[in-house]
């Protein structure tokens, strides 16, 4: 796949231009422009229904869109299965509800995609899967089934599974929202460790304190639009837009 002619050298990991999406009459995304640079850690926040999840789910073609353009590593996303697969190989995804495969061991969860998608043989696939389980610090759980793990451990396995595919970019859709409070930290720490390795990441999260420390850039979305974007200090410390201020007041009161 590396010899794909559609790839432009030195293109940013993600480039989105004029992206619009409707669910029937409801406009979920409204002319979104966004570029994610190499090693950038983008945090997307905003009220529920603002289009945060929809936005990152369009990047790896879990959702379609009607207008605009998405480029991943310069490769223009179309409906062509070959292109969709090439994009998904470059993008790792972590879900709110983990979505581990319950009928396989933790190790097989990580190794099967390597075999079926990356074409690795059984031995090398298991070796690489094990290496990434060590990276998220749960190699001792490799032989267990997902149902035997805590929520925090399951989410770390999900991160290892996505990482093992060695993507250029990671999308994390509310990775800690389904977790008990005492398990949030282990997942956030895993993400910080990833950032230290220089991984490009886009994270939808409601953990404002974490976002402030973690992000290189924050975007605030409302009604399918990017309302405000900037450094965490700028967006959280001195928000220019009234809607951002209202949202932050609410979140901080709850927190």
């Amino acid at each position, binding site marked *: 796949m590396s010899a794909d002619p559609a790839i432009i050298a030195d293109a940013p990991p993600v480039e989105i231009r004029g992206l619009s999406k409707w669910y029937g009459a409801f406009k979920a995304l409204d002319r979104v422009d966004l570029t994610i640079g190499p090693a950038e850690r983008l945090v997307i926040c905003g009220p529920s229904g603002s289009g945060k999840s929809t936005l990152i789910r369009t990047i790896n073609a879990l959702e379609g869109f009607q207008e605009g353009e998405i480029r991943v590593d310069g490769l223009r996303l179309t409906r062509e299965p070959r292109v969709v697969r090439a994009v998904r*190989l470059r993008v790792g995804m972590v879900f709110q509800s983990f*979505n581990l495969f319950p009928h396989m061991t933790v190790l097989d969860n990580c190794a099967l995609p390597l075999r079926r998608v990356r074409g690795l043989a059984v031995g090398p696939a298991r070796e690489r899967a094990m290496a990434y389980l060590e990276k998220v610090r749960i190699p001792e759980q490799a032989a267990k089934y997902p*149902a035997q793990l805590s929520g925090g451990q399951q989410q770390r396995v999900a991160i290892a599974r996505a990482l093992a595919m060695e993507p250029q970019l990671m999308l994390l859709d509310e990775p800690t929202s389904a977790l008990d409070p005492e398990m949030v930290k282990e997942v956030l720490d895993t993400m910080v460790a990833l950032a230290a390795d220089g991984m490009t990441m886009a994270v939808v999260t409601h953990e404002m304190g974490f976002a402030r420390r973690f992000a290189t850039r924050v975007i605030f979305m409302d009604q399918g639009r990017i309302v405000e974007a900037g450094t965490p200090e700028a967006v959280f410390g001195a928000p220019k837009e009234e809607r951002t201020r209202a949202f932050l007041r609410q979140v901080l009161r709850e927190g």
Partner: protein
Amino acid sequence: MSVADNIDYPPLLRRPAVFLSGVGVLFLLLLRADAAHWAPVHGLFGALALTGLEAGPANGLAAALVAALIGLNVWVITGLKTRWQMWIVWLELAALVAVLFVSFDLSYAFIRRKLWILISIGLVNTLLISACSIVLAFVLALAGAIAKLSGNGIALGIANFYTSLFRGIPLLMQIYLIYLGLPQVGIVVDAIPAGIAALSLCYGAYMTEIFRGGIESIPRGQWEAARALGFKPGDTLFRIILPQAMRVIIPPTGNQFIAMLKDSSLVSVVGVWELMYLARTQGQAEFRHIEMMITASVIYWAFSIALEMVQARIERRFGRDHVR
């Protein structure tokens, strides 16, 4: 589950009020039913060496004895572990059915004489037809379910028409239509292939709905995770979705296979020498219908039990991810 943990429902049959009134009601029923005149009760008295009573014991004595024996049996069984209870009750009921059959005064010499032909031709054909139909029905059901979930209008139309037609026409009619109807348009089908075609089309239609339900029971997140990882659609279905859906699919599918084994007897109407056909024709010549019917029934039952055991094994195999 252990009985000690069953706080809300203590063993019902061991409560004196329930047990004693139960035995009492049983006694009255036996009394009314003239238990003393039943052949098995005579046999029982014989076994107990109550020879003097064999001819015509007092009805009350017979009823009391039988009620007491059943009561004792229940009392002993309720004291055992659930597993043992199940097996003993199963075997006792099987023994009762056997007693019923034996009391028909069957000619075992006749059964012995005909058994080999029933097995070597009848059973072999029945198993051949059932096995082929099971495999084909499985494939049809999988294709039907994929078509129904595909969102492709043409596939959906074909699949919906297929399940509607073959679930809507009696299986007997389908066998006739394929065997007698197709030659009208120049396609001559032998009896056995016609039977296999009808059985697999009919059961494939029912199982399409079972497969569709099973696949739909898997959360959307499983599809999304597989797609996001870059799995091809075939891998997503066969590696991720179906292995999980099997847990939901297997119990009703096992049911269908057991039903199909016996519905294969309908193929006898087009003259296939399977178990049912031979049981009917072999018995006819010497007016030994009951012998052949019971023999065939026992054979059908034995193979249904075998299928049940296979089903239980497969269920265990696909259930292992939920063991904690």
